[in-house]
């Protein structure tokens, strides 16, 4: 695992200026384009929270998804289809699950740093929206969200062989989670039949569980543990798929 973390640090260091720029620009742009307009349409949540307060966990989760996507894409799609660094990794005497976890966790570290910067930027834009005692929960659930979403992107990367197919699938996934996982719009805004499906999507469960502890003060065991269980299942599936894709 330490090898993957060192590698991630080298990758950041080798593109330091763009990494720093990205760490500030992405949270800033996502904060203003998603919240400023929407908060004039949805002024407050159904429970009476101001929209900019209610949306914060969803925004951070979406940010984690946006940030982890290129890191996963590069390692599991780009390098794989171009027969680059992934091949020697799979030849090393380590399990495929170690490769999946190593790349995922090292990417997650980069994402966590940017999420923290993002929370800082958001607290400057909307000072009343970020309560310091809630930051830990927001980061924790953003990590769970990124782990689950990262595994979905790994699955997508390993399944597809063409960039056009991958990009279409990726955009569809991103737009779907943006609207259907309760990140920016509450489930009751959808027709009943749809919302009852959406709220049981594993990614939706993360945002539900996070808001439950932030705004109701109750730890939602089912909606916290189910996404973690799905993540573990996906890691097993991805490890198997990586083995098959590498013909090993």
């Amino acid at each position: 695992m330490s090898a993957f973390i060192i590698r991630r640090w080298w990758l950041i260091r080798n593109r330091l200026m763009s990494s720093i720029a990205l760490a500030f620009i992405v949270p800033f742009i996502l904060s203003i384009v998603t919240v400023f307009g929407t908060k004039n349409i949805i002024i407050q949540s159904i429970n009476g929270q101001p929209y900019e307060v209610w949306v914060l966990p969803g925004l951070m989760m979406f940010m984690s998804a946006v940030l982890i996507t290129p890191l996963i894409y590069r390692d599991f799609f780009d390098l794989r289809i171009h027969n680059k660094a992934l091949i020697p990794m799979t030849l090393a005497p380590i399990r495929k699950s170690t490769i999946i976890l190593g790349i995922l966790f090292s990417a997650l570290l980069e994402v966590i740093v940017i999420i923290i910067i993002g929370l800082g930027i958001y607290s400057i834009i909307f000072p009343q929206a970020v309560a310091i005692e809630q930051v830990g929960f927001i980061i924790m659930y953003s990590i769970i969200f990124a782990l689950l979403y990262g595994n979905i992107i790994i699955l997508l990367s390993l399944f597809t062989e063409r960039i056009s197919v991958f990009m279409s699938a990726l955009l569809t996934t991103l737009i779907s989670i943006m609207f259907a996982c309760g990140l920016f719009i509450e489930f009751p805004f959808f027709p009943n039949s749809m919302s009852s499906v959406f709220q049981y999507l594993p990614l939706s469960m993360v945002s539900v569980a996070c808001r439950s502890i932030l705004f109701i003060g109750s730890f939602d065991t089912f909606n916290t543990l189910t996404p973690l269980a799905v993540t573990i299942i996906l890691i097993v599936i991805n490890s198997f798929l990586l083995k098959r894709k590498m013909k090993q």
Partner: protein
Amino acid sequence: MEASITLKKVGKLVGDKTILAGLTFGIEKGSIVALVGDNDAGKSTMLRLLAGLENPNYGSVFLHGLDTDKRRLETRQTVGYVPHDIDLDPWLTLEQNIHFDALLYGIHMEKIQSRIQEYSQALAIGDFLYSMAGRVPQGIQKKAMIIRALAHDPTILIMDEPTAFMDAESRRLTWNLMREFHGDRTIVYSSQFLPEVEAANDRIMVIHEGSVLLDGSLDKLLESTLEYHQFAIEFEELTDELFDSLSGVTTVVNPTKMGNTFHFYGRSRKVFFEVLNACSGALMKDLSIEKLSLQDLLDSAFAQKGLDG
């Protein structure tokens, strides 16, 4: 001698096509073995199987007596693999690429550094070690890939065209390093660069359509051809009638016509005089006589049928 690599009835299929057909052979510890053959003969597939990058459809590969399928993690520790194509991470430096790979094998930082220094000096890439992989010439990247394969100190080194993309000096340095390993590490490599193969090997395996066609030392392989010579006679005009007449000489082997030049093989120089007699006074412009080389042996007609075939 102890076998380092053993293949037992190893076969590889891609769809309906047989890439490797029931190969059974052993490779002695510390030997240097060259795989040669046409494109698509199955050399790269065989190397990938030996490296553990692919699994055979049937049969077993053993490294130091361990089944690569059942003892995967242990056997991988013993192998260093250099693929034909450049596979370094272009966003990492050469040193970082090598370092990361060695870390995956659980090698300590100090050992990694000392090996990188030692081998980069031997292969003269010290000036490029801290350059991004994607920005250095491919020949340098290939040398870094060799160092990467050596960084975890493998006992078996599998290399697919190890000197591809390299200039003459780099090829010389690479083979100097490989010769230092002779006796300690088992080296199996493929190459299309036959002078390189003739210069450095213990054993040559000629692969053709997934099977081992010829197997032995260079001297042994050329043994059957030692008394043969390759002749080329350039005429003022080589007509079809003249070609037929010369080809009809019973001691002429594998005659071919290229422009006005008549190529053939003969068991002794005496054949040349028999051809001269058959020329009927046709005007000759040039003449060459050469001993046979590995290239001639690999000529598909020879390799498949033999000179006497």
